[in-house]
């Protein structure tokens, strides 16, 4: 009879669940959006019972004998605290909506276990501090004994920044912000001003667009004036300042129907304001003697800024987990439950693998007979990496679905669309044929870690695609499809030890082409989550211009001669 810890991300947005063993090993972690195929899965419980049943099976939970301990990623329902704690930078109905969703998730967490017959009545739940969940989840992926651990997000129980000290793998909070004032909310407000929608998670679009604009000091300063940094803590500016700055910014705002490039200067200025404010926070984070910074919270998805941190503010190394936003808190809650049960304050260090989700469904094979009518099906066997490299070198765009799904927003090779980064037109081709994304948004490169100095100016490992780095200018022309407008790339670095298949693929592609870099974008179409089932993958294959999909080691190619 084993004890499992079920961590639930109960924010009301980006729900996720995680399962941790009684020895502190992360057995499973996955965002609900993947299972239900609804982006961000707003308002869906993180223990959606069909998803939970599937996860328990993958983790090896035996309902007949094993026990579950349920943990949530918030210590309380935020709606029980004064609404003024939330940020007035967001529209009031949105704030209330999110508060009500979070309250519901908090109340219902674990109820699905009754539906699954695991428990007979509402289970006891352990409720953990939101930022502590962020911190623990991040530390589980950071191979260091000591570090400063900074959480910056939209909101926690009382504020939107916490600084923890990690010493000997034990975490202690040094301070936290109290009250409104949130960089997550500020970036959301910026997203709306740029004519995008934060509720759809379109902060990415602002960050990508920033590279096309020029920083306007008046706009940057107006945004930065809305939030003050006081000894690292954030404080929302007074109401008069917010009103004045908002009026100034609205003059530069873009209507959603207007050409996107109209918002480029505002996006650049907003990104500069964000950098300026986080720089001020970081200036108050050093001082515990550690030279590593662990960064988490939704703001840790700002890969453009992340790439500028190492070597500044007293930190030589930056660690960002694969799922720094609220989905990742499912792991934090489950690990905190484990630590409480085990009577330890040490945060367990995992093996670093982000491949914690659902494996490829073995029943996928049953589709192959149907697929053969319209496509060519080939078993690539043990050399699937080598043979796929040849396909990519021929210019084919291939969806790859292998092994367990990545946890976090990035496709890291197991649910990815891969292509040749050398043709300048490849980006437009992928957008036109498959993704349907806006043409200005960048695609990412995957590169062997040992090659980084050959390609980037100030190389740093980036196993989870957490930061953008500047390409060496003389190499940009070799990989134009993965060089962003500002000469950067949001890279994934792979080692032979951590991701052997992808490492071999990049190597073999390099042997074919002389360029050991592959374009890697998530296996989805615009507006949809990354594919979850084999059916999802084949649906994208059949309904887009994808040339092929690789399901485990089976290559399925469009066959023009098929009738």
């Amino acid at each position, binding site marked *: 009879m084993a004890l499992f810890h079920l961590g639930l991300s109960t924010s009301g947005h980006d729900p996720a669940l995680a399962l941790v063993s009684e020895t502190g090993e992360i057995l499973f972690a996955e965002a609900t959006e993947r299972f239900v195929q609804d982006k961000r899965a707003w308002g869906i419980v993180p223990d959606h019972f069909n998803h939970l049943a599937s996860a328990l099976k993958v983790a090896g939970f035996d309902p007949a004998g094993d026990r579950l301990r349920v943990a949530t990623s918030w*210590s*309380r329902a935020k709606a*029980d*605290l*004064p609404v*003024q*704690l939330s940020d007035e930078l967001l529209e009031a109905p949105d704030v209330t909506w999110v508060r009500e969703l979070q309250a519901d998730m908090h109340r219902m967490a674990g109820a699905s276990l009754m539906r699954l017959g695991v428990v007979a009545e509402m289970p006891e739940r352990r409720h953990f501090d939101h930022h502590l969940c962020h911190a623990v989840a991040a530390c589980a992926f950071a191979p260091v004994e000591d570090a400063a651990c900074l959480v910056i997000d939209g909101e926690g*129980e*009382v*504020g939107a920044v916490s600084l923890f000290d990690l010493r000997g793998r034990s975490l202690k*909070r040094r*301070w*936290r*912000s*109290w*009250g409104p004032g949130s960089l997550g909310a500020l970036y959301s407000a910026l997203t709306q001003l740029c004519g995008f929608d934060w509720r759809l998670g379109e902060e990415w679009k602002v960050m990508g667009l920033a590279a096309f604009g020029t920083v306007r000091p008046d706009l940057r300063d107006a945004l930065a004036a809305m939030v003050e940094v006081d000894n690292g803590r954030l404080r929302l500016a007074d109401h008069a300042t917010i009103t004045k700055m908002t009026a100034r910014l609205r003059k530069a705002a873009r209507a959603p129907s207007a050409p996107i490039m109209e918002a480029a200067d505002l996006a650049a200025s907003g990104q500069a304001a964000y950098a300026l404010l986080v720089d001020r926070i970081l200036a108050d984070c050093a001082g515990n003697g550690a030279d590593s910074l662990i960064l988490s919270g939704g703001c840790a998805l700002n890969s453009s800024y992340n790439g500028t941190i190492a070597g500044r503010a007293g930190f030589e190394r930056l660690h960002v987990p694969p799922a720094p936003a609220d989905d990742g808190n499912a792991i934090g809650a489950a690990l905190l439950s484990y630590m409480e049960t085990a009577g330890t304050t040490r945060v367990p260090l995992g093996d670093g693998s982000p491949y914690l989700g659902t494996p490829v469904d073995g029943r996928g094979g049953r589709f192959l007979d149907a697929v053969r009518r319209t496509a060519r099906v080939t078993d690539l066997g043990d050399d699937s990496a080598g043979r796929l490299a040849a396909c990519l070198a021929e210019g084919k765009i291939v969806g790859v679905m292998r092994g367990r799904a990545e946890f976090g927003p990035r496709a890291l090779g197991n649910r990815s669309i891969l292509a040749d980064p050398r043709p300048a037109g490849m980006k437009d081709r992928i957008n036109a044929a498959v993704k349907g994304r806006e043409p200005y948004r960048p695609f990412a490169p995957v590169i062997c870690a040992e090659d980084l100095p050959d390609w980037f100016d100030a190389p740093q490992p980036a196993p989870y695609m957490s930061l953008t780095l500047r390409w060496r200018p003389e190499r940009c022309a070799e990989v134009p499809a993965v060089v962003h407008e500002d000469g950067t790339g949001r890279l994934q670095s792979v080692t032979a030890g951590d991701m052997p298949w992808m490492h071999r693929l990049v190597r073999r592609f390099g042997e074919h082409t002389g360029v050991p870099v592959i374009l890697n974008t998530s296996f989805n179409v615009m507006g949809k989550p990354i594919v979850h089932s084999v059916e999802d993958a084949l649906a994208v294959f059949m309904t887009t211009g994808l040339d092929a999909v690789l399901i485990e080691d089976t290559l399925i190619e469009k066959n023009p001669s098929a009738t």
Partner: protein
Amino acid sequence: MTALIETELFQFLRAQVVQRSRAPAERVTPDAKLSDLGMQSIDAVLLCGEIEDRFEVEIDPSEIFEHETVGDFAQSVLGRLAA
């Protein structure tokens, strides 16, 4: 030592309550009811944050609402400091 902290804590609490509620300092006694001093609920929560920073002890944001008087709340914080 404990008495010193108790005095310091109470003085800090009184100054914070006066600043946030604009109540006269002489009204902020240990027996004074927090609800009678004119504190807004948001100010009460932010006061918890000030105590957390000043005395380096984690305070639950709802802690202040669980106590009727200034003195009861101060005792609760002292309990956390002693833990």
